[in-house]
C-alpha cells in the first residue's frame, strides 16, 4: 500500500472512530510547475507541491464533509472529527448511502514521464518558443500578453468503510498564449493553446502560430448587422456549448428540475447530425481516470444518439434515487470538494464535412471563432443564452471579413435541434470541461450587432 492509501485508510478509521456510521477518504498529492514568459524573458517560474485529504462521513442518512492539508496522524483525526460533526448538522436524506466497492480496471498511460524529465530551463524554452513563433509570424503581431506553460503530476488514493479502495497517478500539461496584433487603429487578441499528458507532446510552434493567426485575422473587424442566419461554430466555441449541455445532463440538475433537459429522456432533443457520449476511460482524455471521485469505475455512456436523449449522468446518490446504476460520474475538483455529478470527457461524434464544406453549406452566415461572457450570459436552468461573439462573415460559402462586438442568442436544446452538420475533424478543448468536438453548422441563430 502506498503512503497515500495508508493516509486514506487511517482517515476512514478515524472518522468511524469519531462516530460516523460510514466514511470515505480521498487523498491527493500534486506537484506542479508554471512558467510565464513575456518579451523574450521569463516573467515567473513557479514550483509547487500540495496535498490534502477530504473526508465524507455518514451518520445514518446524514452526510458531512471536511478537508484539510494536515496529513499527520493528529491532523487527519481532527479533520475526521469535523466531518462527523458536520454530518450531525445535515438533514436526513433517504438516498444518502455510501458507494459500494466494484472491480476497478487499471487504466495505464495516464502519466507521462517527460514531465519529470524536463527541467525548468527546458520548459521555459518551450514557452519562449510559443511566444517567439507568434511574434515572428507576421509584422502586424505587436506583442504577446503572456505565454504560459504549466504542468501537474497527481497521485490520488481513495478508501471507504464499505471496502472501496483504489489509487492512480496521472499527469497533464498545457501551454497557451494571448497574442496581440495591431492594424486599422485597433488592437486584437488571439488565443492559441495545446494540452497533453507531458511536454514532449506539446507543439509550441503550432500554439504560437494559432494565437498569431487568430489575432491577425481579426484586424479591421466591424460589427455585423443583426439578423438570423446559419452559423458555423469553431471547435473551441462548440466545446463551450457542449460543456453546458453536459452540465444539463447531470442527474442532480435533472432530478431537481434545474436543467433544460429534465424530463426529456428517450425524447428527440437534437438533430440526427449531433451525437454525444461521455467517456471517462478515453486514453487521450484529460479527465480520464480508472475510477470517479467516489471510487466507482469510469465508463463510456451514450448520451445523445440518433437525435434522442439516451441517458443522464449519475453518481451513486442520484442513481440510488432513481434506482439505476451510477455511470461513474462523481467528480471532484480536488480534495476540497464533495463529489458531485459532472461530465468526464465529452465526445461529439465527427461527421463527414470538411471545414470548407461546412462553410459552403452555410452559404451566407457567420463563423463564430470566439465567445465571451458564458458564465453570465447562459441560464443553465432554462438553457436561454445570449453571449458575446467574434469571428468572420461567411459570404458565398467562404470566409470573408472579420466581425466582432455582436451577440449570438438562442436556447441550448433548440440549438441542438438546429445542428445541420458536424465537421470531420475534431479537436480536444479544455473549455466547458474536457470536450472533443468538430466544428458544427447550426442552421439558424439570432445575431445581434448593429
Amino acid at each position, binding site marked *: 500500500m502506498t503512503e497515500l492509501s495508508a493516509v486514506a485508510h487511517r482517515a476512514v478509521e478515524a472518522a468511524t472512530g469519531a462516530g460516523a456510521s460510514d466514511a470515505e477518504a480521498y487523498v491527493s498529492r500534486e506537484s506542479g510547475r508554471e512558467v510565464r514568459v*513575456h*518579451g523574450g*524573458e*521569463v*516573467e*515567473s*517560474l*513557479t*514550483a*509547487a*507541491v*500540495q496535498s*490534502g485529504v477530504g473526508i465524507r462521513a455518514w451518520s445514518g442518512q446524514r452526510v458531512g*464533509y*471536511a*478537508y*484539510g*492539508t*494536515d496529513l499527520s496522524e493528529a491532523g487527519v483525526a481532527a479533520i475526521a472529527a*469535523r466531518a462527523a*460533526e*458536520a*454530518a450531525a*448538522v*445535515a*438533514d436526513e436524506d433517504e438516498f444518502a448511502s455510501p458507494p459500494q466497492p466494484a472491480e476497478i480496471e487499471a487504466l495505464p498511460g495516464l502519466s507521462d514521464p517527460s514531465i519529470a524529465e524536463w527541467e525548468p*530551463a527546458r520548459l521555459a524554452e518551450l514557452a519562449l518558443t510559443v511566444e517567439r513563433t507568434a511574434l515572428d509570424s507576421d509584422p502586424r503581431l*505587436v506583442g504577446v*500578453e503572456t505565454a504560459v506553460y504549466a504542468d501537474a503530476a497527481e497521485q490520488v488514493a481513495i478508501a471507504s468503510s464499505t471496502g472501496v479502495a483504489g489509487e492512480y497517478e496521472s499527469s497533464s500539461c498545457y501551454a497557451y498564449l494571448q497574442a*496581440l496584433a495591431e492594424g486599422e487603429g*485597433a*488592437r*486584437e*487578441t488571439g488565443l492559441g493553446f495545446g494540452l497533453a499528458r507531458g511536454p514532449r507532446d506539446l507543439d509550441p510552434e503550432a500554439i504560437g502560430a494559432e494565437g498569431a493567426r487568430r489575432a491577425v485575422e481579426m484586424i479591421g473587424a466591424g460589427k455585423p448587422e*443583426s439578423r438570423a442566419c446559419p452559423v458555423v461554430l469553431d471547435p473551441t466555441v462548440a466545446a463551450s456549448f457542449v460543456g453546458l449541455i453536459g452540465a444539463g445532463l447531470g442527474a442532480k440538475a435533472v432530478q*431537481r*428540475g*434545474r436543467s433544460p433537459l429534465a424530463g426529456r429522456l428517450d425524447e428527440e432533443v437534437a438533430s440526427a447530425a449531433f451525437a454525444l457520449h461521455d467517456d471517462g476511460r478515453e486514453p487521450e482524455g484529460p479527465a480520464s481516470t480508472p475510477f470517479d471521485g467516489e471510487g466507482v469505475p469510469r465508463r463510456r455512456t451514450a448520451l445523445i444518439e440518433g437525435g434522442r436523449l439516451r441517458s443522464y449522468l449519475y453518481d451513486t446518490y442520484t442513481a440510488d434515487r432513481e434506482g439505476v446504476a451510477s455511470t461513474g460520474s462523481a467528480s471532484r475538483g480536488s480534495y*476540497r470538494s*464533495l463529489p458531485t455529478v459532472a461530465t468526464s470527457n465529452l465526445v461529439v461524434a465527427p461527421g463527414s464535412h470538411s471545414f470548407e464544406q461546412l462553410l459552403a453549406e452555410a452559404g451566407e452566415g457567420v463563423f463564430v471563432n470566439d465567445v*465571451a*461572457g458564458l*458564465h*453570465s450570459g447562459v*441560464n443553465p*436552468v*432554462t438553457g*436561454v*443564452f*445570449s453571449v*458575446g461573439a467574434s469571428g468572420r462573415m461567411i459570404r458565398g460559402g467562404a470566409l470573408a471579413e472579420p466581425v*466582432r*462586438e*455582436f*451577440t449570438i*442568442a438562442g436556447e441550448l436544446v433548440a440549438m441542438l435541434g438546429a445542428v445541420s452538420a458536424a465537421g470531420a475533424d475534431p479537436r480536444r478543448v479544455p473549455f466547458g470541461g474536457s470536450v472533443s468536438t468538430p466544428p458544427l453548422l447550426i442552421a439558424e441563430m*439570432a445575431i*445581434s*450587432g*448593429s
Partner: protein
Amino acid sequence: MSELLDRDVAARVLARALANGGRFAEVFAERRRGQVLAIDEGRIESVQTGAEEGAGVRVVEGGTTYFAHVDGLDAADLERAADEAAAALKGDRREPQPLQARETAPLPISHRPEEVPAAQKAAMLRELDERGRAKGGEIAQFTASYAEARREVAVANSDGLFTGDDRTRVRIGAQAVARRDSSVETGSETLGGHRGYELLEDDPGQIAEKAAEKALTLLDAVPAPSGSMPVVVGGGFGGVLFHEMTGHGLEADHIQKGASVYVDKLGDRVAEPLLNAYDDGRLPGEWGSDAIDDEGRPTQKTLVIEDGRLTSYLYDHLTAERAGVDSTGNGRRESFRHLPIPRMTNTYIAPGDATPEEMIAEVERGFYAVSFGGGQVDPATGDFVFGVNEGYLIEGGKVTRPCRGATLIGNCLDALAAIDAVGNDFFMKTGMCGKGGQKIPVGTGQGHVRLRALTVGGTER
C-alpha cells in the same frame, strides 16, 4: 501574525531565499478556515468545513519572479519553499534588511462566525427557504447557501517589512426557480461582507424574497430586444459594468504589457465631467476590503477618474517599481498558492445628482438593466459583455415589460464616454472576480447610471 509566522523564522527564510541572489524576497504565510452549508429541496446538505495552511516564497531578480509554495507552516516547510524558489538563481548571496514589525489593525469583526453553532446557521437557511417559497406556488425550486471564511495572513519581505492581517468574510446566496406551465425562470440574490455573523443580524431572509420575486417577475417576461439603444443600469451590482469596462484595463500589468485600451491615457478625458470613480480597499465592512493587500501594503482609496479624466492606474509592488511610483495597495492573491498581481478591491462610480426616475423618464425607447449575472472583458481590445439577469423595456419614459435573455455588449472607451447621467442612489454589492486563474472577492458599486447608447443582444425575433 507572530503566531502564524515567527520573526526569526521569517528572517531565516528570507536569507535562504536570497542565498543565490535576488533583489527582493518575500514570504507569505496563511491559515484558512471555512464552513459552507446549503439548503436544497428543503433539506440542509453539503455541510463542509475546511482547514488549510501553507506559505509561498518569491524571489525577484531582473524581470523574473521565482515562486514556490508548500503546505504547512513549520519552519522546515517554509525553508523548503525558500530553497525551491532560490534553486533556479545563480547569483551571489544577498542579505535581507532586518525585519521591523508593523502592527496592522484588521477590520473589526463583532460576532465571530466560527463561534456561531452550525445548527443556528442551518436554522437561518431554513428561514430563507420558507420565506422564498412563501412568495407563491409558482416557486418550484429554492436553494440557499451560507459560506464563512477566515484568512489569517502574515507577510515578511527583504525590505524589512513584517506585518499581517486577519480577515473574516461571510456571504449568503439564494436562488429561486419559478415555473408556470412550460415557462421556467430563475432569480438570485446575494449578501456578503468583510464582516462576521453580524452581517446576518438584520434580516437575511430578505434576499430569499428578492430572489423569488425576480424569478416570478420574469414569468411575465418577453424576449429581450436587439440593437443599439439608451441603457439605464441599476445601482449596486450594476457597478460591475465599471469594474469590467474600466477597472480591469487600469490594472498596471495590462498597462505595462500594452494590453489595455487605457495605455497612455493618464490625464486624458475618457468620460463626461460628471463621472468620478474610485478603487477603495478601506470601505468599512465591504466585501473587497482588507486592512493590507497581500504584499503587506496598507489598502487605500485611489481616485481613478476625476471629473471625467483618468487619474491613476492600479499597482502592486512590482508594477509600481517598474513605473517608478508607489504601489496603490492593489497587490492581491487568491491564496498562498498564488503570486500577487494588480487587482481591484471595491471599485465604484461615485454618486451623482440624478434620480433614477428622472434618468428613465428622459428615455423614449431603451433598456433598463437592473442587475447582471456577471461580465467579461478583454482589456487589450476593450470588448466587453454582460449577462443581464433582471432587465426591463423602457417605453415612453416608463419601465414597462420585463425581458429575458439580454446581454449588453460594447467597447470600453465608447461605453465609458457614453455615460450621460449618474444617480444619487449609491450602494455596494459583492462579486467574485477571476483573473489569471485566481478568484478573489471584490466589491462593485454605483447609483443608477445611464448610457446614451449600448448594444443589447436579445432573443427577440
